[in-house]
């Protein structure tokens, strides 16, 4: 089977030698592997972009999940930005609020686009729609943002994991934040190598993050991990654009993430048995949601 790249090293080297952005290499590989036309592929990505826009819009209006655990924080954040008192900066907080908006919609069983997963779906669109206000990209550049994110995610999914049950939250929000950082760099005019550096810088700060959802719901702490993932993506991108490099090459960082995931105990891999899920409050919330003495794993019958 023909494949253009299976590592970040190959991806960056292709982009550099052919003098093309990473998004373009991803589009070319998609044409090659799926034998669909370039137009069809770009049109599908634009549809995904539209779904992301709608989810952010919906979340910024305020939603509430069935369990009542999450919802409404995106609205609070927007009100705070409008007050002009933000300390960390309006752009970062805008990204945070839009990431939260997406995940609040996801928790309320609304329609979202997984990037790379549903639990981590806030970070890529959250950063995109915040950076958009500063960089004024064309629609095409916004679509390319998604292809660049996808190119890095593709390497992670095939060489490590993007599943919380297999690799913990580092594999989900960790991957999403690192993918977003790489895409921000490209949109801001950075080089392919700088995208890779941004990816590494962010992923190194996500290593070891466990998946410990309270009551097994994609709500606590997932929504806030998307918030912080968006903030880290922006800071990581800025660091790479400033010329900071990672001492450990990107593919080795991905390999480290994979090995950490494999040695993570199953209680910390989306089983709701450890971490925050196992705290007294986490347990109490679970009992409240599923009824006293009931758990997320009891038999269900029609």
């Amino acid at each position: 089977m023909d494949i253009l790249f299976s590592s970040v090293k190959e991806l960056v080297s292709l982009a550099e030698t052919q003098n093309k952005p990473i998004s373009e290499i991803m589009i070319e590989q998609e044409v090659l592997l799926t034998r669909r036309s370039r137009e069809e592929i770009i049109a599908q990505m634009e549809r995904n972009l539209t779904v992301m826009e709608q989810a952010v819009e919906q979340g910024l209006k305020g939603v509430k999940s069935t369990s009542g655990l999450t919802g409404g924080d995106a609205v609070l954040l927007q009100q705070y930005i409008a007050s002009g008192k933000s300390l960390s900066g309006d752009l970062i907080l805008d990204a945070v609020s839009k990431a939260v908006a997406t995940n609040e919609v996801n928790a309320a069983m609304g329609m979202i686009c997984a990037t790379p997963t549903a639990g981590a779906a806030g970070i890529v669109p959250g950063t995109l729609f915040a950076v958009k206000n500063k960089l004024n990209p064309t629609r095409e550049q916004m679509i390319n943002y998604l292809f660049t994110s996808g190119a890095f995610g593709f390497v992670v999914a095939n060489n490590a994991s993007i599943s919380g049950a297999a690799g913990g939250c580092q594999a989900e929000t960790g991957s999403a934040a690192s993918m977003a950082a790489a895409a921000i760099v490209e949109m801001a005019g950075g080089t392919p190598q700088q995208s890779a550096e941004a990816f590494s810088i962010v992923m190194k700060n996500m290593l070891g993050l466990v998946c410990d959802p309270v009551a097994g719901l994609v709500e606590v702490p997932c929504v806030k991990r998307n918030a912080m993932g968006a903030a880290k993506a922006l800071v990581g991108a800025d660091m790479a654009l400033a010329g900071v490099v990672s001492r450990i090459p990107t593919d080795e960082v991905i390999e480290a993430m994979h090995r950490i995931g494999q040695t993570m105990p199953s209680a910390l891999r989306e089983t709701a048995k450890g971490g925050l899920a196992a705290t007294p409050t986490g347990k109490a919330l679970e009992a409240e949601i599923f009824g006293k003495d009931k758990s997320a794993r009891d038999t269900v019958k029609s």
Partner: protein
Amino acid sequence: MKFRSVFEIIGPVMIGPSSSHTAGAARIGRVARDLFGRQPEWARIHLYGSFAETYKGHGTDVAIIGGLLDYDTHDERIKTAFEDAAKAGMTFEFIPEEEEAEHPNTARVVIGDGKGEMELVGISIGGGTMEVTELNGFPLRLSGHYPALLVVHDDRAGVIAGVSNVIAEQGMNIAHMEVGRKEKGKMALMVIEVDQIFDETLINQLQSLPNVTQVSTLAN
């Protein structure tokens, strides 16, 4: 290479909250229904690992039932799948298992009606992507990336050649093929992934071949 498309990373468009536990689960249910070829009357679903521990919170149960009702990952009706199943006359049961499966997100889907029964094991490997690892006791690897033909046949010389001849005569290219059997000389299963969508003619031709007992299909 488990992931082949950028849309497995940026996608699928889906109803939340989890790509592996909701979207991947819906796809497992839908592939099971596709292979069964009709709406089952009953379903018994055994869940393992993370699926067993967190399926209620993730809506894994409504998603699998939604899949069995032929709903796609972004179909809003997933939310009302339990009620819809009752209306469609399908009963179901979810059984969380204690034992560990090879993959943390594993479901064993047993479905049937007055005419027959089918058992499928599906794993959800992340981001909404799934694989079928077992069908009616046959180990296999089916990704759902391509349209696929599943041919149950007697383990005799020449059956594979017969099947591949029919496919070649239709001008179709085989992308991936796997043959497995439980016991020498007994029943065997051929899994053939092809590049193009196939039609009824091909299926009928395959069904009429000697030693072929059943042909199921998976449209892409």
